[in-house]
């Protein structure tokens, strides 16, 4: 049985600028469900039990740019628990840019039933998204479940 990941459509709507549409994939650590909210970047080290969440507003969508694994040899929490913590701190969804850390996809494959969706993004799509972050211009994000064929086409 071919494992099929559920694709996600990510619509990024910077205020007063042309929206961009990207693609990612839902990680099965969390539920596959649409979400939307204001885009906020989180430093990988901000998702630790000992770090505080200075952001009080909830209802945002957080983007975390993961660094190469060797640059954070002993992470404070697993990626699944970082996603859980982000949800507990008010994130409606968590986007992980895994361009530099493909191992993240495996770490986030085991179902944990997290309520807030976790979406992995990489490569050119991730570059475009981080470009919006770097310009530090407020943006609204919508994550949708991309349609999938009824039965995977077994020949």
């Amino acid at each position: 049985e071919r494992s099929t990941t559920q694709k996600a459509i990510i619509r990024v709507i910077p205020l007063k600028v042309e929206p961009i549409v990207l693609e990612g994939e839902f990680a099965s650590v969390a539920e596959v469900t649409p979400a939307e909210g204001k885009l906020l970047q989180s430093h990988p080290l901000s998702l630790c039990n000992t770090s505080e969440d200075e952001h009080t507003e909830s209802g945002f969508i957080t983007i975390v740019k993961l660094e190469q694994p060797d640059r954070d040899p002993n992470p404070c929490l697993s990626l699944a628990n970082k996603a859980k913590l982000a949800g507990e701190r008010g994130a409606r969804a968590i986007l992980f840019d895994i361009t530099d850390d493909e191992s993240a996809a495996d770490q986030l494959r085991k179902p944990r039933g997290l309520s807030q969706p976790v979406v992995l993004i990489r490569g050119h799509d991730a570059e475009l998204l981080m470009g919006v972050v770097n310009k530090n211009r407020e943006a609204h994000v919508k994550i949708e479940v991309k349609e999938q064929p009824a039965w995977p086409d077994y020949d």
Partner: protein
Amino acid sequence: AEPGAAPSCPAQCHCEEDGIVLSVDCSELGLTAVPTNLSPLTAYLDLSMNNISQLQPSAFRHLRFLEELRLSGNQISSIPGEAFSGLYSLKILMLQNNQLSRIPAEALRDLPNLQSLRLDANLISVVPEQSFEGLLSLRHLWLDDNALTEIPVRALNHLPALQAMTLALNQIWHIPDFAFQNLSSLVVLHLHNNRIQSLGANGFDGLHNLETLDLNYNELLEFPGAIRTLGRLQELGFHNNNIKAIPENAFVGNPLLQTIHFYDNPIQFVGQSAFQYLPKLHTLSLNGATDIREFPDLKGTTSLEVLTLTRAGIHLLPRGMCQQLPSLRVLELSHNKIEDLPSFHRCQRLEELGLQHNRIHEIRADTFVQLLALRSIDLSWNAIHFIHPNAFVTLHSLTKLDLTDNQLATLPLDGLGGLTHLKLQGNPALAEPFAKESFPKMRVLEVPYAYQCCAYGSCSGFFKVSNQWEAEDMSPEDEDLHKRTLEFFPGHADNHYDLDADDLQLDLEESKLHPTIQCSPSPGPFKPCDHLFESW
């Protein structure tokens, strides 16, 4: 300052007036010496993160109004006796992150108003007896991240006003009796990340006002009994040590304790009465204490909200447990040997209950009765063969139920209408199909057989219409909602539209999109929706 030099803002520094006094920031300028033409009205002077290795004698003599002096992040290895003379108004002195190997006792002799002294992150291994003699107003002392091998007992005898001190990140290995006997005003004492192995029975005598004691990350072999004299202690930490037992009456001298952190100790034994009469304690976590056979007596510990007692040898829960714990919200008892459950009905505020990996065999009608706040129950990995039909009836807040790997043949559905997560895998005799209407809010469902997922159309995502078999499955309302949603998202990623963010927001809320239901194992060509196996 040199005679005649007009007092002004030293070159490259940034000066700001604050009434008649001046704030001068000369940080990170690569300076190798203290600027000479500092205004006598300077109240705040930041010389941090420069390359200053020596302080000239009387460099600050004319700064009578100076209240805060920052010299952190330089290369100062010693300080002449008169360096700080004349600083009668000085309250805050920052010398952290330098190269000092001993306390500059002479230089600190005449600072009558000093309240905060930072000496952390130096190389200090010597603390002369008279180091702090002149500091009668000192309240806050940082000596962490240095090279101390013992508590500087004699030097600490001259600090009557000291309220907070850290000696963390040193190489201290022992706390002698009466080490802090004159520190009657001390409220906070940090000793974490040392090598403390032993502690005198009277090690903490004299600390009448201590509220926070941090002994984490040391090498203590025994429970720190010396804490019994700390009558006002509120926060205690001794996690990451080598302590094997918590004795009876361990905290009898500390009735005000609110938090105790002692995880990551090889604790095997805990006195039955160890945690009694702690009316302010709200969290108690005990993991892996295999010698614990009985549930602890928590008489008088009435504010406990979170109790974690896992991987021990508990086989029975006392009937009166909930009477002792009226505020309990989270009870985590996984990995014990519990066979029979009492009624939890007096645990009225219980929200989360973890009983996985025990030996429970049945759930009675009164087990969870009237637990109106209970949201999550984990009963996985037990031996449950019977659940009373009314077991869940009163659980109006229940959203998560995990019964993985038990011996169920049937599941009573009364009271489970609010579930969003239900796990039933590993119950081979549980073959009944479930109707979608039984769980209207379901989002994650794990069932023993794939055909039990077909009721949830999990063979199709919510947005699909391509297959006639799925279309028939959709109720009229679903179909209408589904069509309107498709118009809204035609499904091609590169579609562009110029709606303003607010318009998009409103449309999405109106359409009330349903998330897809994750049901597993999901049917496929090799796991058909008809239970073929039974008909063969």
